């Protein structure tokens, strides 16, 4: 089963750890903690591909951040963490957690989101098995072709190939080309003599 991922953007160590602790009690979840309050937060947020982001709406008041959230984080849902005020801004929040919520309430709220996400994930073709298309791309990677070459060969954009590659890596748990090559040989996707 694919894990449901959370990234917590929170400067306070106590709050961060507290939230991570509560989420950690729910099976099949994975938490990443970000304590960055610097300019780097733009870069990090932009490339964040977790399922949920927990963040204090106060940090989001900055317009730049709003843009990033609205344009880049299409598959990510936001959870507001409210430390003192009850004020939400106009962004779409999937849920709110208050600093005064007790453990049961927090777990209940998160659990609900996790449940939705899991059904969503299991619907989008069987999560760990690689698709036909992906197998074809994997084969070409193992044969030593570059992203560009694969794209030309299969009439795809390089961007699409890169996306497929990311999915292959995520599903198989193998990041490097030599690693993928061994997988391809073990699973008879290519012959051992074909590998360079």
């Amino acid at each position, binding site marked *: 089963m694919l894990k449901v991922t959370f990234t917590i953007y929170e400067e306070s160590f106590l709050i961060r750890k507290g939230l991570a602790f509560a989420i950690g009690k729910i099976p099949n979840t994975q938490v990443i*903690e970000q304590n960055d309050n610097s300019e780097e937060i733009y870069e990090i947020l932009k490339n964040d591909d977790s399922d949920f982001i927990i963040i204090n709406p106060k940090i989001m008041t900055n317009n730049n951040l709003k843009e990033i959230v609205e344009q880049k984080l299409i598959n990510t849902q936001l959870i507001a963490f409210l430390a003192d005020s009850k004020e939400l801004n106009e962004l779409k929040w999937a849920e709110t957690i208050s600093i005064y919520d007790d453990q049961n309430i927090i777990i209940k709220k998160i659990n609900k989101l996790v449940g939705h996400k899991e059904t969503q994930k299991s619907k989008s073709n069987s999560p760990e098995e690689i698709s036909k298309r992906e197998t074809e791309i994997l084969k070409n990677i193992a044969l030593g072709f570059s992203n560009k070459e694969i794209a030309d060969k299969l009439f795809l954009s390089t961007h699409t190939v890169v996306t497929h590659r990311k999915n292959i890596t995520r599903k*198989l*748990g*193998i*990041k*490097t080309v*030599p*690693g993928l090559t*061994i*997988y391809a*040989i*073990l*699973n008879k996707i290519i012959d*051992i003599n074909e590998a360079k």
Partner: protein
Amino acid sequence: MLISRNIKMADVIHMNYFTLSVLNRFGIELGFGDKPVEEVCKKHNVDIDFFLEILNTFVDKDYFPKKHLQSFSVKLITDYLQTTHDYYHKVKVPEVESLIENMVDSCYTQKENIILLKKFFDEYKQELLNHTHREEEVVFPYSLAIEEAYQSETPDKSVIELMNNYSIDIFQNEHDDIEEKLFDLKNIIIKYLPQPKDTGLCNRLLFVLFNLEQDIIDHSRIEEKVLVPKIREMEEILVKNFAKK
């Protein structure tokens, strides 16, 4: 848990026995009775601040080095990193190699698959060697030169040229994730390799790989979170001082 100078050294090991390899690299021998960290360090001529910094980075992935503890010299850091490199090449890599070798010898049903693993690791070994070699030949000497200029009252102008040709930021950018292939190798064995007869060997190999991967991740953290910020600060001050003149 934060390790401080007053904790018993024996407790440090009980808490996390992987620290044994760190102690080893500092030349600290076992048999310290109930002596606190500070005393053991003194006995072995180990810089206590540096030792704590390394140990805490090692046991707690959230640990961020404190500025005030960064008083130790660059030479201490590079020496430690160098010792760690040697430990990989002289102890860990041969350990993995001999385990894989044993697997090849003892396997009859899928020799060709194990040979694939062997080739994969041979490639990795070369990559690791290139990685550490570059650090030893370029990054460490550069860092030491920056420190020397920083400490000197009349730094030679040549250091400016040195900084024009290289900088610690270049290192940070080119510094690659050398542990990725180990991650792959682990997963291939855990998830995809048809299990060889001798599962004991396989488990031992996995154990060593997990251990080495963790150690390398920690090592890279010290390079990026201890060495890099320290050198960057010196670079900035050097540039400022030269601009004043």
